[in-house]
């Protein structure tokens, strides 16, 4: 008997193989996306751990404050005297400009030279990992040698070896590319640099000293701690020893406080949150679709089930045949799911590798995740089949035999909906009536469409939101001048001093305005005394609120010259829970009698500005005097003079050697985010492709099963002379009705999903950026039209079946 059931089931499979494969594929997309996306997170976590371990990222990094330096060996001596430090290395880091030619075009970007031990002769902290056949740079060569950061080299497709020119017109030979843990992801505190606009060069310490002209100097110490050592205690001892022995102030940060490390380790969690949401929705959509289709396939066998019951077959035997169909679907879902999972994971992994420049990218097969997804993929169709079969075997055989009548009733809601009067001719009413008489079935199909379209909406919206956030941020800072730039001075200078006036008077610069940017720790007045008040480190930029050249936009409140108030970013105001007129407590550096000190004051919120970066805050230039910095500037903003380009400005100012640390186009503010966004687009794209494919599969399955289920109705229509195209049109209309409702619901649900992803998920991982949720409606409309077209065209495929139908054979099927 069991063998008969197996043969019978295989015969079913042969007859319905298109449906079974299509349903299996629907399921495969859901489980494949879940397994594939989750695998990548695991790959990344494993790879990050291995890469960090191999290159021995520091536990603590101590930097000499205010651009200062100390003689080589002095920081090492301090470290050697402190208990708990395992290894340490002195370095000299400084910023420069890097110039080269790419494809005949001049490339001038910001550079960072990391002078360190690159010999590989002994284990160092924060080691470089050489890529492919890169050589180790040696010191003492006529032209200084360096390793160039792999991200920059790959982005610009630089040759394996070559020569670059750095600030001061010095040529540097790069002998290969490398990565180092501090730069596994290019992410600075202000997000200004990405792999495309920051050229990191790793050179021997002596070469760095030569290039910078700081012979025998270092300014940085990286160290690892012995197991169990107290990082806070070591930090305290380092700062104290440097102050007492060398008379210098050290800024010490832990590995966990390093922006690139936060980005590196936080990103997988963020992505997994997004992946989980996407794959869970898709898996649910695919599961509902499978449930729907499998149930309908079994429903079609209810008369046979009734017959089996009538001749006394045991329910557990009856279940076997439909159950085997469920298992076949599950098996196909599992096999195809692995293929889909691998396609997704390799695409996602490749996007991840473009952003996370790890020396090792391990891709072990995630058996656990796949087993989980496959078990789910197998269970869903089996349960989907069991449900209607168990329903069928519970009813009286006579009712099971009358399956058509039972199916027609549509549960308790069907009869009510069926009585809603509809306008139009009977043929035009049919699609509506068909949906109304089987509301549960229609609802399940609607649910699957809705979920798929919601994901498509959210994916498109997320891309648009990120782009809009970047564009709006750039627009706000540029103020209509695409080449507006900021010159960062290497120290504080009087506004009428030579350093600042040189910049202002430079022939490549116009509309120059000196300003001041100071770091400040801000909290709310209300949270004073609270257990864990929100404290944010903001960059307060003092600008002339009366300037006609550029002032921040006040989305709330107003900018009054001379006002003592602070202008906060919308994101900061939201996080603090303050508005215009409220007060915040600002702890800031103060210059008292020529010495730096710290001061805390209560400042009213004068306005809110729309720039998405939370750390950007503004005060009127007049307020620098209240902080003790009156008449000083550490930045100058301006635009290139007529006839000059931004590169001219960079070259001219950086080469001037008069206190200029950095010249940066303000449109590069979000370069890190832009670079990572570019790499993520591949993931978004492939996800969208699979979603569209899922919608098509669901539409195809729906149409195919409708054609099977209603073969008698269609035969009757043909007998009455209704052309095949009209029947197909009716099926299309039925799909479209669901599609349009799904569009509305999917749009609403997708928007909610987008808000959750952009405002909640992103805010956990990138708390400094206030996402500007944005939707490009034409893009949405185009995608939705594609989805609707897929739904509308789906009945064309089973249309062949309709055309080839043997009408008399269908008409004579007996109840």
């Amino acid at each position, binding site marked *: 008997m069991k063998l008969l059931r197996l043969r019978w089931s295989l015969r079913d499979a042969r007859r319905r193989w298109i449906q079974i494969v299509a349903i299996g594929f629907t399921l495969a997309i859901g489980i494949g996306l879940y397994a594939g996306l989750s695998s990548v997170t695991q790959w990344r976590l494993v790879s990050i751990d291995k890469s960090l371990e191999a290159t021995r990222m520091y536990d603590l990094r101590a930097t000499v404050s205010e651009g200062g330096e100390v003689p080589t060996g002095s920081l090492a001596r301090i470290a050697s005297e402190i208990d708990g430090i395992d290894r340490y290395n002195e370095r000299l880091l400084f910023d420069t400009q890097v110039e080269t030619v790419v494809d005949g075009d001049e490339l001038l970007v910001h550079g960072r030279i990391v002078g360190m031990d690159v010999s590989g002769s002994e284990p160092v902290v924060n080691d470089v990992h050489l890529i492919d056949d890169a050589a180790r740079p040696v010191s003492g060569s006529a032209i200084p040698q360096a390793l160039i950061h792999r991200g920059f080299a790959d982005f610009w497709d630089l040759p394996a070896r070559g020569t670059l020119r750095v600030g001061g017109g010095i040529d540097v030979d790069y002998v290969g590319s490398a990565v180092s843990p501090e730069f596994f992801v290019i992410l600075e505190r202000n997000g200004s640099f990405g792999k495309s606009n920051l050229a990191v060069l790793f050179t021997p310490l002596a070469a760095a000293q030569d290039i910078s002209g700081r012979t025998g100097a270092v300014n940085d110490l990286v160290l690892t701690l012995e197991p169990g050592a107290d990082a806070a205690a070591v930090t305290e001892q380092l700062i104290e020893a440097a102050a007492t022995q060398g008379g210098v102030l050290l800024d010490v940060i832990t590995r966990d406080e390093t922006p690139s490390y936060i980005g590196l380790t936080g990103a997988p969690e963020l992505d997994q949150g997004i992946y989980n949401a996407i794959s869970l929705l898709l898996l649910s959509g695919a599961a509902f679709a499978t449930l729907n289709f499998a149930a309908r396939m079994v429903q079609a066998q209810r008369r046979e089930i009734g017959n089996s019951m009538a001749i006394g077959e045991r329910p557990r035997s009856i279940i076997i045949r439909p159950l085997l169909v469920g298992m076949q679907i599950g098996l196909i879902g599992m096999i195809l799911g692995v293929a889909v999972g691998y396609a997704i994971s390799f695409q996602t992994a490749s996007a991840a590798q473009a952003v996370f420049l790890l020396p090792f990218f391990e891709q072990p097969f995630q058996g656990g995740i796949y087993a989980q997804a496959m078990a789910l993929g197998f269970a869903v169709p089996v349960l989907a089949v069991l449900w209607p079969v168990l329903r069928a075997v519970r009813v009286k055989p006579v009712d099971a035999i009358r399956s058509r009548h039972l199916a*027609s009733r549509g549960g308790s809601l069907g009869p009510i909906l069926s009585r809603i009067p509809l306008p139009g001719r009977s043929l035009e009413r049919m699609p509506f009536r*068909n949906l109304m008489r089987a509301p549960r079935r229609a609802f399940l199909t609607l649910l699957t469409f809705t979920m798929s379209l919601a994901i498509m909406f959210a994916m498109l919206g997320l891309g648009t939101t990120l782009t809009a956030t970047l564009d709006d941020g750039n627009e706000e800072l540029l103020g209509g001048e695409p080449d507006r730039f900021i010159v960062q001075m290497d120290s504080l200078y009087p506004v009428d001093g030579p350093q600042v006036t040189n910049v202002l008077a430079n022939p490549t610069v116009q509309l120059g305005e000196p300003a001041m940017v100071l770091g400040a720790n801000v909290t709310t007045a209300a949270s004073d005394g609270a257990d864990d008040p929100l404290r944010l480190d903001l960059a307060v930029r003092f600008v002339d609120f009366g300037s006609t050249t550029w002032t921040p936009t006040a989305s709330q409140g107003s900018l009054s010259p001379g006002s003592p108030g602070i202008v906060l970013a919308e994101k900061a105001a939201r996080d603090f829970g303050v508005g215009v007129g409220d007060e915040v407590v600002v702890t800031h550096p103060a210059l008292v009698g020529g010495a730096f000190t710290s001061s805390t004051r209560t400042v009213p919120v004068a306005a809110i500005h729309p720039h998405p970066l939370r750390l950007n805050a503004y005060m009127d230039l007049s307020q620098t005097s209240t902080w003790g910095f009156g008449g000083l500037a550490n930045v100058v903003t301006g635009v290139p003079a007529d006839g000059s380009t931004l590169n001219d400005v960079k070259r001219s100012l950086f080469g001037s050697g008069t206190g200029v640390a950095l010249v940066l186009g303000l449109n590069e503010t979000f370069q890190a985010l832009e670079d990572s966004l570019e790499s993520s687009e591949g993931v978004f794209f492939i996800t969208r492709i699979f979603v569209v494919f899922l919608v098509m599969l669901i539409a195809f399955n729906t149409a195919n099963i409708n054609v099977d289920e209603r073969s008698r*109705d269609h035969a009757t229509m043909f007998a009455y*002379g*209704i052309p095949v195209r009209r029947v197909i049109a009716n099926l299309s209309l039925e799909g479209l009705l669901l599609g349009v409702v799904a569009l509305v619901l999917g749009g609403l649900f997708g928007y909610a999903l987008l808000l959750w992803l952009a405002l909640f998920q992103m805010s956990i991982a990138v708390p400094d950026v206030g996402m500007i949720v944005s939707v490009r409606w034409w893009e949405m409309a185009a995608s939705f039209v594609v989805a609707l077209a897929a739904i509308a065209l789906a009945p064309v495929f089973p249309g062949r079946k309709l055309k080839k139908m043997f009408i008399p054979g269908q*008409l004579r099927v007996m109840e």
Partner: protein
Amino acid sequence: MIDLEGVTKHYEVGPVLVTALAGIDLHVDTGEFVVVLGASGSGKTTTLNIIGALDSPSSGKVTVGGRDLTASSRSELFALRRETVSFIFQSFNLFPGLTATENVEFGMDVSGKSGSAAPADILDSVGLGHRLGHFPHELSGGEQQRVAIARALATGNPVLLADEPTGELDFKTGAQILELLAEQANQDRAVLVVTHNREISRMADRVVEMSSGQIISDGPPEGGKTPLSELHW
């Protein structure tokens, strides 16, 4: 109205060639109530399907309503079914999502005769004036068949083809259905009823008996046309 000349129909079932019709000739005029009688496999339903353009003959000529079906295109055959012939099936084949009234409206809509008569009136004429808003599953078998007849009548088409219309009905209900069909012949329609029930054939104007794909007799019923009240089965 209906002309069949030397019509054959063969089916290939695997390697076996099955002959369903072995060259039949048949002529039915307007106003005739013809019963095609025969055992299962005799070819009567195949004949009906060919007349209704649901199936095509292997050879021979079929003319319905002046149209040569063997020389008609696919779209012309669809048009014939909309404008000339109407079907009544043994298993009713009503649209489960449409009410009785809407099923009748369907007949009117497809033939382009909307507005020629009220669907309610047609349903009333078949004794279902009280069941207008009911769905098929809410009707008895006899009532469903009467809706099917009303749907066929609503087309206003001159040829009415009924395939075992009483097959699923009890005697009393079946008799009412046949009476309804007989009335249609009186309204200038050609009515062709296929059945295996010899008793039914007694109320026809003409009985065509088939066996093994051939017409073995064609003429008035044995013993003459009998009133419905005298039938037994």
